[in-house]
C-alpha cells in the first residue's frame, strides 16, 4: 500500500468545463472525478490521498504561481508517487501535466507518471526534459480511451510505488526519453549483432539496442541571390578554439557555444589554435586548423571578390555526444546571433 496524488485539469476533476478553465490550483482530499476511476483500478494496492486540479488556462497564464501552489499542496502530503492526466490529445492539459511532473520530480524527488496521446505536443517537452524520474505512457487520442489509460497508469504507478528498478522504455511500456541505461547483457555484442543481422536477412522481427532518433523536417532557407554582396560566417563543430581553450570546453557534451575573432587573421597558424574534441583524432586539426575553419580559402575568395566579406568571428561548439535538445538550443542561439550581426549565409564544418 502506498499513497499518491492524482493531478487533473478542472474538467476531468469534475469541477467544470471551459467556463472554469481560469480557476487556480485547488486540492480535495481523496479521489474526485477521474481519480475515482484510478482508485478503483488500484483497489487496496494504493490510496489516492488527494486530487490536485487546476484550470487549463490558469496554468498557462500563471505558470509560476500554479507550480508554486501545486508544490506547496503536494509537499505536505508526502506522496510516494504522483500521477498526472491522462491528457489524451489536449495540448494545454498535456503540457501542464509534463511541467508539473518535472517540477514534482525535481523538488520532491518523487517518481511521476503522466499519460497522453503520442501526437500531443507535450510529448516533445517530456522528451526534452529527459528526467529519469518522470514517465509518460501513450494513450488514445480522446477520452474514449479513459479506462485503458487509467488501467495502464494504475499498473505503472504500482511499479513505481513498489520501488522497483525501472527497466527500458520498451520493457516497461513508457515513451522513451532518450536516456541510455547500461545493462549487463548475457551474450557478447558480436553474437547479438549477428542475430539481428540474420533476423533482418530472413525478414524476421528483431529489436535494435540503439534506436535512432526520429528527426523532424525543416524547410531549407532560401538561396543566396548574390554572393558578391554576401557576408559569410564559419561555424565549426570540430572544436577548434584559441590555444589554451580559454572557455574551458569539454571534449564531450558541451552545453554552450562561443565565437572567436578572426578579424585580420589571414591564416590559422598551428600553435595558436587547438582542437578540443573527444570524438576524433585531433592531431591533423592541430597541425592545420584550416581543416576545421577553412579561413585561407575564404580569405582568397574575399580578395577575389567572389564573396563580399568573411564575418570577423567564427562560431564553435565541440560537437561530441551533444544531447539533441541542447544542440537545438545552441543552433537557435547561433542563428539569432548571425541574424543580429547581419550575416547572410554560413558554412558549417562538421567533424
Amino acid at each position, binding site marked *: 500500500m502506498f499513497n499518491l496524488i492524482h493531478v487533473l485539469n478542472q474538467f476531468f476533476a469534475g469541477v467544470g468545463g471551459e467556463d472554469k478553465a481560469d480557476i487556480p490550483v485547488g486540492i480535495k482530499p481523496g479521489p474526485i472525478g477521474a481519480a475515482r476511476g484510478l482508485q478503483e483500478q488500484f483497489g487496496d494496492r494504493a490510496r489516492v490521498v488527494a486530487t490536485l486540479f487546476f484550470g487549463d488556462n490558469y496554468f498557462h497564464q500563471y505558470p509560476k504561481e500554479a507550480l508554486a501552489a501545486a508544490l506547496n499542496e503536494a509537499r505536505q502530503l508526502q506522496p510516494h508517487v504522483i500521477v498526472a492526466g491522462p491528457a489524451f490529445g489536449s495540448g494545454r492539459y498535456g503540457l501542464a501535466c509534463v511541467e508539473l511532473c518535472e517540477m514534482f520530480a525535481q523538488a520532491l524527488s518523487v517518481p511521476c507518471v503522466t499519460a497522453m496521446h503520442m501526437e500531443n505536443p507535450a510529448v516533445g517537452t517530456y522528451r526534452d526534459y529527459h528526467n529519469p524520474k518522470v514517465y509518460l505512457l501513450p494513450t488514445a487520442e480522446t477520452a474514449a480511451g479513459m479506462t485503458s489509460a487509467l488501467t495502464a497508469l494504475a499498473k505503472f504507478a504500482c511499479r513505481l510505488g513498489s520501488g522497483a528498478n525501472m527497466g527500458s522504455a520498451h520493457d516497461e511500456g513508457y515513451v522513451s526519453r532518450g536516456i541510455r541505461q547500461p545493462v549487463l547483457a548475457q551474450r557478447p555484442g558480436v553474437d547479438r549483432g549477428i542475430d539481428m543481422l540474420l533476423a533482418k536477412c530472413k525478414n524476421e522481427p528483431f529489436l535494435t539496442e540503439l534506436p535512432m532518433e526520429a*528527426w523532424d523536417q525543416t524547410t531549407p*532557407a*532560401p*538561396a543566396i541571390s548574390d554572393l558578391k554582396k554576401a557576408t559569410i560566417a564559419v561555424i565549426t563543430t570540430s572544436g577548434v578554439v584559441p590555444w589554451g581553450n580559454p572557455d574551458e570546453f569539454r571534449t564531450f557534451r558541451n552545453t554552450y557555444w562561443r565565437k572567436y575573432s578572426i578579424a585580420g587573421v589571414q591564416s590559422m597558424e598551428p600553435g595558436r589554435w587547438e582542437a578540443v574534441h573527444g570524438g576524433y583524432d585531433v592531431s*591533423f586539426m592541430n597541425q592545420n586548423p584550416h581543416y*576545421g575553419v577553412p579561413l585561407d580559402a575564404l580569405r582568397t575568395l574575399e580578395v577575389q571578390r567572389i564573396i563580399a566579406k568573411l564575418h570577423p568571428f567564427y562560431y564553435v561548439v565541440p560537437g561530441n555526444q551533444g544531447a539533441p535538445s541542447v544542440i*537545438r538550443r545552441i543552433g537557435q542561439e*547561433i542563428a539569432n546571433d548571425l541574424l543580429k550581426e547581419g550575416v547572410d549565409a554560413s558554412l558549417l564544418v562538421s*567533424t
Partner: protein
Amino acid sequence: MISKELDRAGVPVAVISAMYPVAEQVGASRIVKGLRIPHPCGDPSLPPELDAKVRQEIVRTALKALEAEVRTTTTFVPNRSTTA
C-alpha cells in the same frame, strides 16, 4: 542539427562533413561532402599547396550550394580531380 535551426531562422547554411550520410539522415538541407572525419576541409597526405587547392574546391562547392535553391536534403560533391 545546428544547421536545421539556421534554416529555420532563414540563414542558408552549407554543412561540410565527411559524415554526410548522418547529415542526410538528420535532414540538413545543403550538404557538401568533406574528405575525412578528422580533416573535412582538406587532405593532410597531399603537399600543402595541393591540400589548399582541395580546401578551396570544397569551400567553392559550399558557396555553390548556398546559391542553389533546394527543396529538400541535397548533397553537393566537390570536383573529384582535386579531391581524389
